[in-house]
């Protein structure tokens, strides 16, 4: 549990909110504040990750700047959230990746792409990238099967391990306790999957000004479910290949290609939409120093989807080799950087929602109405 200026500022704001409570109906953060009279650093880290940054409480706040209390809760909680990513990162030395995270993730992506190209050209032959390959196992002619699977399992395995350890650290730091209990798990899962709190009690977020809009939720859903479909596509493809013995590429109307196509389109729409909302949005209630991190992750995901779809379209042409190398380079760097990019917001947010579901059940406080 570290203390910082951001921690002190968050504590100051939350104590004022706890005396005010006008925003109680907006989201989970305020009822969670009200269960406490003072805030440990762990509490603050929990509340920071519980905030979905919908910004409703900024525009509604009677104490927002230029008031001398200068309350800007979404901004302060976003800054603190960033600090929690650093604090809980595993292994510790890799926490430096969160410094100038936007740049780091961008460079990592470029390096990932370069590495795949160089290794393919160097270990195989440059010509492979230019030839036309078709039929079962075509992709493995460019990148050998062992290399592709080895790297994929290695990076995702490590990423998952690192994020699980991060989540455990977060859980312990924010109060520990058992995370079981079916009802709480179900509540948290629903809150995650519906983005229940991304939306000022039903009317959506504030993007540019005082007006509410559902666009951010819609784009985030497109991205999230698009990503889920793509993961589904990869899983089905893995089963086809390694269990059923049908190596890729698959027909346009096959399950993996359909999942991947819709998923990829969803991801492109979602990432482009979120990027646009950030560009046109009011930046006052945001943590500007973490914007680079947001942009970098969106860029990675957009490129992953775009190159995936391009690969599908051009897989029978001579561009396939290069596109495959490009796509895999991006995917590889995405997974490698997963625990050290904005991606982790989903891990800590979910853990925070689980904690919230638990403490609400134990407190006996009625559920806060999100529609009124």
């Amino acid at each position, binding site marked *: 549990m570290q203390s910082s200026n951001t921690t002190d500022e968050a504590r100051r704001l939350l104590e004022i909110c706890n*005396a005010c409570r006008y*925003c109680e*109906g907006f989201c989970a953060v305020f009822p969670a504040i009200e269960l406490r*009279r003072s805030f440990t650093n762990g509490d603050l880290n929990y509340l920071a990750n519980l905030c979905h940054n919908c910004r409703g409480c900024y525009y509604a706040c009677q104490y927002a700047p230029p*008031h001398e209390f200068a309350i800007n809760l979404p901004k302060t909680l976003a800054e603190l959230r960033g600090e929690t990513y650093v604090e809980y990162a595993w292994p510790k030395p890799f926490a430096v990746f969160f410094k100038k995270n936007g740049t780091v993730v961008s460079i990592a992506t470029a390096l990932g792409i370069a590495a795949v190209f160089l290794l393919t050209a160097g270990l195989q032959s440059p010509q492979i990238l230019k030839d036309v390959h078709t039929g079962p196992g075509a992709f493995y002619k460019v990148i050998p099967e062992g290399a592709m699977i080895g790297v994929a399992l290695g990076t995702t395995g490590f990423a998952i391990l690192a994020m699980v350890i991060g989540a455990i650290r977060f859980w312990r730091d924010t109060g520990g306790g058992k995370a079981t209990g079916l009802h709480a798990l179900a509540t948290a899962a629903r809150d995650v999957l519906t983005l229940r709190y991304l939306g000022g*009690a*039903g009317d959506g977020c504030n993007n540019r000004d005082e007006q509410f809009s559902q666009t951010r939720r819609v784009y985030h859903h497109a991205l999230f479910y698009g990503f889920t479909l793509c993961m589904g596509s990869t899983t089905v493809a893995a089963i086809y290949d390694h269990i059923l013995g049908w190596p890729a590429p698959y027909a346009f109307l096959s399950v993996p290609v359909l999942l991947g196509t819709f998923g990829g389109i969803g991801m492109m729409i979602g990432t482009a939409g979120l990027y646009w909302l950030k560009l046109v949005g009011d930046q006052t209630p945001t943590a500007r120093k973490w914007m680079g991190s947001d942009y970098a992750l969106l860029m990675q995901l957009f490129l992953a989807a775009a190159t995936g779809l391009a690969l599908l379209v051009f897989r029978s042409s001579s561009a396939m080799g290069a596109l495959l190398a490009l796509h895999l380079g991006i995917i590889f760097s995405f997974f490698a950087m997963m625990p050290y990019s904005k991606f982790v917001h989903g891990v800590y947010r979910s853990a925070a929602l689980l904690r919230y579901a638990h403490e609400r059940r134990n407190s006996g406080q009625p559920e806060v109405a999100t529609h009124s």
Partner: protein
Amino acid sequence: MPGEAPLALNQTPDVLVIGGGNAALCAALTAREAGASVLILEHAPREMRGGNSRHTRNLRLMHEGPTKLLGDSYSEKEYWDDLMRVTKGKTDEKLARTTIRLSSDLMPWMERHGVRFQPSLTGTLDLSRTNAFFLGGGKALLNSYYTTAEKLGVSVRYGAEVQELKRDGNEIREVLVSREGVMETFRPKTVVVASGGFQANIAWLKEIWGDAADNFIIRGTPYAKGRVLKNLLDQGIASVGDPSQFHAVAIDARAPKFDGGIVTRLDCVPFSIVVNQEAQRFYDEGQDMWPKRYAIWGRLVAQCAGQTAYSIFDAKSVNLFMPSVFPAKRADNLPGLAQQLGLDPIQLEATVAQYNSAVAAGSFNPRVLDDCHTDGLVPPKSHWARRIDTPPYYAYPLRPGITFTYLGIRIDEQARALTTDGGAMTNLFAAGEIMSGNILGEGYLAGFGMTLGSVFGRIAGKEAAHHAIK
């Protein structure tokens, strides 16, 4: 800036609304929907728009049966009885009944104009049947109204202070406005004044209260200076309400001079003893349940030397009331606490000792008028009296926090301003705090300010539009 009126403004709108709080917006929306062109002049800049209304959280609604938000019922009779109780009968029955009756269909109107509600906030159970709470509070409510108004084509000019209304017979002909040091003249067909009270005008308060007013804290907007009110009263508009009275509560003495709002309130008094600068008690802290005594303490503290008093309690009581914005002063012993407060340590110890020895045995219950009281102490503490003996000891410094003033302009049922010679203005209407004295001759009922402003804002808007475009 979004919402800023274009430079070339309509200098002759059908309806000119003065003020940018709840009453003003209700009037503007209604007038616009009735077909009038509407211009709002708000003294505050956009970020601080909305007067005292930005600090509110609920309004009081009559309902004959359960609604989707308010349970049970709150009948006209009960509402009226409550109003009679707090005003001690100082009210205009016709206007009061109009307010009560029309409050029953406010909620759908408000929702149509973007306002959203939430269940009553935790810690306000006493209001959950009678008062509807705004999701996000008064500023969120105003945001919805401004957004809707702009969509409907209402022009809003911020930073515009109305200085003078030119009365000619029973008509207002011109309105003089200063904005960034430049004077402008408007010639509207009708005018709605919704510019609040004069509680932020310290010089005016000093005329009544002398130098004590320097130590008053104004809980709401610094823009409610009563300039329009004074200007109208000087021109023979009839007044209503006691010019020397205001509604005040005891708040944290460290609150900002203006706009501290709700978070500076202190609910610790019934669980404490309150001493003045001589470290002496001066009133029964446990007289009644806190919400009912809330307003008495503003007056009491205003009468103390230096307009300051101190609420003192011990570790047993620290979690019995809602937290507030500043932490309590804290010390391991009473002399230490006295030192932090600048009180005489010997006297404070003596006052506490005297109080402690008068505390009778009882069973403490913060939720009812319990039987914990003092015997033979002057003044007594009638309830929740427990010995102050468990360190650490705590204290909050108190000052009077002024909510609003009672002086206003007299109106009729169409919200038309009346004149001292018994006539009525033809194109001047009033709504909100500036006419609340018609109904609230004294006292206050939680949530009534917003109800009254909404009801009369709508009446004023409708009548003004009607008069302008007939």
